[in-house]
């Protein structure tokens, strides 16, 4: 499923990286340790996290992830949004918890 469709169905906020929303999501990964994501996430997954540091975009780009979803209503700083635009990584947000949004994405993509 395309990121744009996933975002519509789940009512996600798009903070940046809109040029990447036509990519397909192939599963997801939940983690707040960037070292763990570097080690274990796979390309084209959607990454669900509470981390809002700008390294998130660098790691997402390195791992060729489909998108990043920031949970709990946390908002990325302006420089993170700029980074997501530069790297074409859709940076999305939700007020829901990682548990809730991961559950919904799992049921859509499984």
């Amino acid at each position: 499923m395309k990121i744009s469709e996933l975002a519509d169905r789940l009512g996600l906020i798009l903070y940046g990286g809109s040029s990447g929303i036509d990519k397909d999501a192939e599963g997801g990964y939940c983690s707040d340790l960037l070292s763990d994501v570097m080690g274990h996430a796979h390309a084209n997954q959607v990454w669900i996290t509470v981390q809002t540091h700008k390294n998130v975009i660098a790691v997402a780009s390195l791992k060729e992830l489909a998108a990043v979803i920031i949970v709990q209503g946390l908002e990325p700083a302006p420089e993170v949004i700029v980074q997501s635009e530069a790297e074409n990584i859709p940076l999305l947000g939700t007020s829901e918890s990682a548990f809730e949004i991961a559950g919904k994405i799992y049921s859509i993509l499984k």
Partner: protein
Amino acid sequence: MKNFTADLHIHTVLSPCGDLDMSPDIILSQAMAKKLDLIGITDHNSTRQCQVIRRMGAELGICVLAGAEVTTREEIHCLVFFDSDESLDRFQLFLDERLPAQKNDPDKFGYQVIVDSQNNVKGMEERLLINALDASLEEVEQEVHLLGGIFIPAHIDKPRFSILSQLGFIPSDLAVDALEISPLTTQENWLALHPEQRQYCFISSSDAHFPDQIGRRVTRFTLLEPSFCEIRKAFKKEEGRNVLIMN
């Protein structure tokens, strides 16, 4: 220039995980026994125990760098140090503002006690000090440097609470004065794994929570005299000053 031996990462009775034997007098007598010229007092998210140790250390000829081990929002531990009581107090206000209200449970996490030079209990920190501040890595770095302090990401080789475990790599625009590695590795082995970090200055310290851990890993500073200003110059290798980890 002379060489001075330093252990810049020591917890006290104030840290919940710090042993109740980590009182000012015992820390200083251990530092004397281990022939340390410089020590750093770095409790979790609090500077409330270090000023008394700095005053007592001065009488014994031990230079005490006063500061804290801060936990940023990303759960990264960073050592911070300040030159004057005034800048320490101002940083304490920042900590008080940014530490969550969550109370400590001494049975689970340990006591958070503030003592005077005679080991009389002056107070207890009610809030849980091992919590993360509501402040990002960059916000903490900027606050520390605004107050003229020193900023050192702690035990960066560890798989928990380190800048690498939490952020994957060191943001290239982060203004660090040095990086700390734990006693678990050596600078040589670490840089063999991370050659991209060669431009940084490294220290290593004990991260002592118990008296016998003090000085188990030290860093040798080449300085005119043991002082905060000289250490800051040494991190920049100014005019023959130097920093060398002793394995």
